[in-house]
């Protein structure tokens, strides 16, 4: 993979191990829905929408890649130095957007192996939107140990294994010349192994559904371990239709919590075969933070919520927010096994979902 960046490419990115990127993409893949990729100097975002109600977006920051060059003017003025655009992140106009068949991209990336996920048990976790820093030991043991058998199979020196090819995915280089051109993938597994060249058809990006969470004030904000939410979702029968989230305010100050108090977070589902109610107690072990001023109750179609369960498999921490309009925002941290550098290295996946309009 050469460093003399081809200046006529709008986008060139390479990564030595495709597994993590693939895990992020799998998290937002449902059915054969096409994905919109938007490239900026800060990284890539991959969005998939369903029925104009759900928008799933994977954020793949540029430092996840070993090499990331973005040159929006490539098509126009081809002599722009790419290093300059890197030094001024976020200061630019419209991102470059195009649509691709996401299933085909994932199939191509898994040509040399199908291993999923890349979470390492000792990857540091990081909270979203708060300066909250975690107690790492707390993450290792406790309830998550039971709930994350996959993570626990990763040896403690998972990071070292990366360099010795213990369970390594293929290396990949992505490049995109511009509108009307395919997305080009070059992949290689090992030095003497086969190489693959994939050209993935791109389409002109259609405007994606506008789900602006910050339009209305936030009324519920919870941060919890992803395994708690994942286990809850796995309990729910897939025939269920309605998925209701109820948040309750804390007991008034100066009074201890009683068992008769309503739970801080309750999940209710109703389907053909019955209904389920799951309560999350107000325990720091369960709900790391829970901000809620007054009772909140919104319902969503379960088939949309269920799309998040694949991403939850590999996520460590979830931020669950609901705004006044009832729009749900789930942000899932997807930990990398990479050594941490300055800046936010972890990619994340966000699901935004509109509520069911209920009769008042």
């Amino acid at each position, binding site marked *: 993979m050469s460093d003399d960046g081809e200046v006529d490419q709008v986008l060139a990115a390479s990564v030595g191990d495709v597994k993590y990127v693939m895990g992020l993409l799998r998290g937002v893949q449902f059915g054969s829905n096409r994905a919109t990729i938007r490239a900026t100097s800060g990284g890539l975002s991959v969005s998939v929408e369903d029925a104009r109600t759900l928008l799933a977006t994977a954020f793949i920051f540029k430092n996840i890649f070993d090499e990331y060059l973005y040159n929006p003017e490539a098509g126009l003025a081809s002599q722009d130095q790419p290093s300059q655009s890197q030094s001024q992140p976020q200061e630019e106009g419209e991102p470059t957007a195009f649509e691709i*068949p996401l*299933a*085909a*991209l994932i*199939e*191509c990336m*898994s*040509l*040399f192996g*199908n291993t999923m996920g890349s979470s390492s048990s000792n990857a540091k976790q990081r909270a979203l939107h708060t300066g909250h820093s975690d107690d790492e030991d707390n993450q290792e043991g406790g309830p998550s140990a039971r709930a994350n058998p996959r993570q626990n199979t990763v040896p403690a020196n998972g990071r070292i294994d990366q360099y010795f090819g213990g369970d390594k995915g293929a290396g990949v280089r992505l490049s995109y010349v511009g509108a009307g051109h*395919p997305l080009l993938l070059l992949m290689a597994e090992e030095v*003497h*192994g*086969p*190489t*693959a*060249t*994939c*050209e*993935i*058809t791109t389409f002109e990006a259609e405007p994606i559904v506008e789900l602006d969470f910050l339009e209305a004030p936030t009324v519920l904000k919870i941060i919890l371990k992803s395994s708690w939410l994942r286990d809850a979702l796995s309990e729910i029968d897939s025939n269920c239709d309605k998925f209701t989230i109820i948040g309750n305010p804390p007991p008034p100050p100066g009074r201890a919590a009683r068992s008769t108090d309503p739970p801080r977070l309750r999940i209710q589902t109703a389907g053909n075969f019955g209904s389920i109610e799951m309560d999350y107690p107000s325990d720091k072990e369960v709900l790391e933070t829970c901000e809620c001023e007054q009772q909140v109750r919104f319902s969503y179609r379960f088939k949309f919520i269920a799309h998040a369960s694949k991403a939850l498999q590999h996520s460590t921490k979830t931020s669950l927010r609901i705004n006044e309009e009832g729009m749900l925002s789930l942000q899932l941290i997807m930990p990398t096994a990479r050594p941490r550098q300055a800046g936010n290295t972890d990619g994340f996946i966000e699901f935004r979902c509109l509520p069911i309009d209920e009769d008042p």
Partner: protein
Amino acid sequence: MRFRANIEDVATFYKISQAVEKLQKRCTVKFTESEMHIICNNDAGEGSIQVWSQIQVPSLFTEYRIQSNADNEIYLGVATDALAAALKSAAAPSGQQGAFSGDAEVIVRLVKRTEVAMLSFEINASTRLGRPVRIAHDVRVDILKREDVSRLKQPMCPEPEVHIILPPLAKVRAVAERLRPLAGEMIGMYANREGCFQLRAQTDAASVVVSWHGLSNPRMAHDPSTQRADEDDERDPKVLYGVLVNVKSLQKFLNSHVVSTTTIACICQNHCIILYVYMGEIADAGGVLTFYIPAIIE
């Protein structure tokens, strides 16, 4: 007509039968004094893939006796699954699950029971506790006439453009398997004379080329009566020649990865691909399964 032999290398015979079983329901087996031939050439098979194999008698059998009125050759039509089932119980157990220890003695005979011809497999083995076990499989066979079999002809092919030694089939198979959802009906197989072999797949969503480099191109002895031999050196070695083949045919061929050590592919552009799957080392000349996969002409 008499036939009897000890099967010395049951494991290999079993692997061959497995490879053939996935291909066709019935096959033709020809025993001569020095070789065993297994032929699958029904057009009923999907993609009309054909197999012509030759296995040297000493590489599979000992105490091999054959006698017939047709120059000591015997032609049989056999159901492939029955053959594989008989050999399966004779094959040395793999891992912990086998009930017998590996030193089974297997004798195959051509017999006639109530006017029906059978290949009788007699297996004398012992359990892991050392108790003797005797298993007999009778596989019903049709005795074929020599005239019928002599009408079976290997497909005629032009002189191939490229000969190349393929990477280990298990690896090719793993890639081909994952290529399938991206391939639709056909997969392209391409090679050049500089050690490059490619699998290509294409759909509306994506087009994929998987390339292996640094393979070797064996030199073949040319038939001096054809002119192609002279042209060979003039052609550009970088040019890729290829055929489009049915995905299912390719997968059936790749099932033979269990027996293969070395595989040589010969590409006859726009005609067919011929694949020689060697069992054991090439130098031993133990046996070869020859697959013909016809090209799909667009």
